[in-house]
């Protein structure tokens, strides 16, 4: 009963924060790739430097501290700073720069010659992004998104420590504070299974994309 509820909460946190971190991180990652002064298709050195600094700053924050800092933002967006919904805000913001870097490096893996060919054929910047960079790096993108989801499962468990709900919360409040090790064990096993399932699906999709080429 407790475990079911907590699993649903974890699921909710992970799904929504994955979606939101992608919404924030995808454009950021694309911009980081295209504006790169060395390899970008539309080099913008100043923009690149600014974005890089922001991404690095956000990534260097320990998650627990970022969450506390973002409590006021959660209050503005979802009206509260505790509970599952409130945790989605810092989770998404913490994962977004990670997603941005992952997308940047996936897109940069695309062979420069192929991009040059696309440019020579008269592709616009948008066409290069959507018709060349993204499809060509699809397997790396899928791997990156899988990694993001798994990281978010870990983060969401940590979020439990400060009242976020979910499996992490369950493990700490019942397992640790009330001395019920079996609940802690169950919570850990459920997280483990979740990670295995996500990794399995991610690897399968990535393989399928890679084997079609």
């Amino acid at each position, binding site marked *: 009963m407790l475990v079911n509820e907590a699993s649903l909460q974890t699921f909710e946190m992970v799904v929504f924060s994955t979606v939101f971190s992608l919404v924030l991180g995808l454009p950021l990652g694309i911009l980081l790739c295209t504006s790169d002064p060395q390899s970008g298709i539309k080099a913008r050195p100043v923009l690149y430097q600014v974005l890089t600094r922001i991404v690095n700053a956000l990534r260097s924050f320990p998650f627990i501290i970022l969450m506390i800092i973002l409590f006021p933002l959660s209050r503005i967006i979802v009206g509260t700073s505790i509970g599952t919904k409130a945790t989605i805000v810092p989770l998404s913001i913490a994962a977004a720069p990670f997603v941005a870097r992952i997308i940047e490096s996936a897109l940069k893996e695309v062979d420069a010659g192929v991009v040059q060919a696309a440019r020579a054929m*008269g592709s616009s910047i948008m066409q290069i992004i959507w018709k060349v960079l993204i*499809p060509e790096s699809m397997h790396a993108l899928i791997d990156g998104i899988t990694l993001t989801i798994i990281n978010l499962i870990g983060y969401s468990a940590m979020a439990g420590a400060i009242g976020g709900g979910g499996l992490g919360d369950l493990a700490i409040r019942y397992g640790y504070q009330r001395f019920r090790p079996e609940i802690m064990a169950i919570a850990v096993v459920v997280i483990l299974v979740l990670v295995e399932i996500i990794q399995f699906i991610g690897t399968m999709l990535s393989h399928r994309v890679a084997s*079609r080429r």
Partner: protein
Amino acid sequence: MEIVLSRLEKTYKTGRSTPAVHAVRDISLTVPSNGIFGIIGKSGAGKSTLVRLISLLEPPDSGTVLYDGQRVDNLTGNALIQRRRRIGMIFQNFNLFSSRTAGQNIAYPLEICGTPRQEIDARVRELLEIVDLADRRDAPISTLSGGQKQRIAIARALANRPDILFCDEATSALDPQTTKSILNLIRKIQAQMNLTVVMITHQMEVVRDACSLVAVVHNGCVIEQGTVNDIFLHPAGDVTKEFLANLAPEPDAASDKGSIVRWSEGGGKYTLRFVNKLTDEPVLSRMAQKFHVEFNIRAGGIQKLPENRIGTLITDITGSPDEVEHALAYLKSEGVLVEEDV
């Protein structure tokens, strides 16, 4: 489409500590319409930069590029994109999209112009026929051989009916046999589609087998240019001579008429070159009958150009100085090109 380059300059600043690279220095060239123009140079000679400038992938630092009298090097934004869509380009590494099948690769340039689906399908089928790969439409790129990849790349380059085709080291990653067939294909489509083809290469074989005009690039400058025949017959610069010396024998020619075969070390004061019909005439023995000289052949061979054959004999001609002089004059009057080693 005639391409006129005048006074092109391009310098790359690589970093603060490393010196700038002056890749293209004051290059002026005219590529006449409807032919195959070769640009040959060693790696690092500046030919890749040159093709990037001519194909509008990069603007020059100074100088102009004209397509049929229209200035194109200063195009930007949409005008540049529209112009690029009427340029075909193929590369050493093929640069095909691995996420697309062969047919979808050919469709790409049509897709980005917003061509209707049905039209794309018909055109893709037509192009696959032209490059002889009709049965590989749905093949993933990774399943194609090097030659097939380059054929698909050619089909893709031709999709939007360009008036110019740039080939950037297009055959350098291919074996001699495949190179031959790709060159034949390029010659065929050039003739069929009234294309202006510019071939960048470091292989003299490519120039010999496909081009009618050639420019030799070295250290960012054009050091020699002319018809392929002229360059083969009268190479002026050392770089050009080196290219000719390294010419690989023709892959399909019988071995006895490949490149020059030398059967005696040393000797060989005179290099005689026989063009076309002369290769069939007994000029040398007539010379020996007419004058008091003897000749001794040290080396010889035949080279094929697209429209010509050149026979080369390295000989010694002995006799009294007067007679030798008369004999040489006779050879020249018969159309033999005589070079004397001093």
